[in-house]
């Protein structure tokens, strides 16, 4: 059970599509996470033991981190892992629950949509002046677009869950 699960009480989506997405995300994000750890370890050992640090380790870590964060995002949305304040929501009348989940879901989805859109524009901006990393000269724009796409997927997942809240039977 992760912190994200401990903090949230919402149920997670269980359709085949959701399961498939979860598997893809867990493999890719897991691989990136292990790569991030491995890269740091190899860099440290290289630097202190072999006197040969990994070239561009820091900037690779940075790109791995931001990709990891955005790969985790659809998973958090899918599993209802966002932190909420449930002080009042627990004591609201039951009939309002459906509407509440729908409205907060739609608004969240809208915010995610704006984020995706702005990331896309930001990617175009940094691509416009050909931003590359310092030593490896890796282009940054594709990573921004990758994040934009994942934010977009998160917006869709959140939207789907909001719509599902209207029709799903409440437990």
């Amino acid at each position, binding site marked *: 059970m992760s912190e994200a699960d401990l*903090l949230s009480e919402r149920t997670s989506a269980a359709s085949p599509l959701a399961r498939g997405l979860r598997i893809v995300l867990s493999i890719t994000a897991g691989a990136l996470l292990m790569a991030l750890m491995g890269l740091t370890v190899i860099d440290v050992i290289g630097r202190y033991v072999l006197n040969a640090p990994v070239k561009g380790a820091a900037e690779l870590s940075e790109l791995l981190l931001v990709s*990891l964060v*955005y790969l985790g995002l659809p998973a958090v949305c899918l599993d209802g892992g*966002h932190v909420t304040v449930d002080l009042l929501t627990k004591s609201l009348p039951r009939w309002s629950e459906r509407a*509440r989940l729908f409205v907060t879901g739609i608004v969240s989805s809208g915010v995610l949509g704006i984020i995706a859109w702005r990331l896309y524009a930001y990617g175009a901006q940094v691509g416009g002046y050909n931003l590359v990393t310092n030593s490896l000269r890796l282009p940054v724009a594709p990573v921004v677009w990758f994040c934009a796409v994942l934010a977009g997927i998160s917006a869709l997942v959140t939207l789907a869950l909001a719509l599902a809240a209207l029709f799903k039977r409440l437990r």
Partner: protein
Amino acid sequence: MIEWPIGIAVLIALLLVGMPIAFSLTLIGIIGTASIIGLKPSFALLGATFFDNGRSYTLTVMPLFLLMGNFVVQSGIARELYDSAHAWLRHRKGGLALATVAACGGFSSVCGSSLATAATMSKIALPSMRRFGYPDSLATASIAAGGTLGILIPPSVILVFYGIMTQQNIGKLFMAGILPGLIGILGYSVAVMISVRLSKQDLPAEPKLSLKERFLALKGTAGALLLFIFVMGGIYLGIFTPTESAGMGAFGAFLLAVFSGRLKLSDLGDILYSTAKTTAMMFFILFGALTFTNYVNLSGMTSDIQSALSMFGDGPYATIIAILIIYLLLGCVLEGLSMITLTVPIFYPIVAAQGFDLIWFGIFVVVITEVSYITPPVGMNAFVLNTVVRDVSLRTIFSGLLPFVAMDIVRIALLIAFPAIALTIPSMM
């Protein structure tokens, strides 16, 4: 320009209807900023905030320390720590609860999360305390309170969060958490003794072990101790950056988990997936907080609140006590991470202007957050215990926590009176 109280009121309304905190902060940040500098520049800031802050070498500590904590949970270190502490404390009255507190402290030194510490220790310490007839209130409270040390004793995910928001050195923040953490262990031990004294039940003390047996039992602490010395020693001596030490720590914990034989491939998958999820969850709160901070800085909120706080009296101590009271009240209704992201952007410039050290303030905020984990109605660690032992009511857990909360108040008072408690170790780096 929307006046900032409207922005805050809408933010609170969004939070109360259960809108995720990350998106509430983002939305109010965007709209508030737009109301001051216009929609276009507000949107223009957004892309950079949500990408550049994620592309940060310093912040790689977050997933790596989370990963380390998750591996440590799987490694069985918690059980070994508990057995060692038990060997030293078993002959005392309430020895099992004392051992729980000590083991929580030890576990906190390799795990940066309070919820994970409480969840892990509850599976180990609770069964034995119940078997020996400890009252439910004491058994659950010692774990819930001991677990809060997770965010104070380094590594600490919350301190990383604070460090990023206030641009403070994360290594120094970590070092600053050590002494207050030890004082926390002492305080909680006193709380256990008070609870034992107040309890009508006569708690059994087990026969004392010989000195030799006790020292042999220390063997169980080796894994955690090595990991802690390696990770924190590396930061303290300036050999590792926090990122490097987090990577090495995660790898060390990975090895411990592998060699313990408890890490199956399916566990590894779960750990990686849940670490990625927690990382994303926390980063989006951070991005939201930074978007919100843009608005706070533009709105003039800081100076307005500063003058409001000065009504409590003049001078830095009046300010800090006013802030303390606000935090204790907020802590009752908000979960820790939310409280920190909502308040730190507003308070830290005020506190810095009064001449307080921001490293010290970080520890101050984290200790108060610890209190928030164990105070009703929203006490996350009490909730965790409640999910582990369904048959113990929240009321029982919270009542057992009273002496522990009292000791926390003492600790905060000490921290205010003697800032050196936090600042001595970082000043020696």
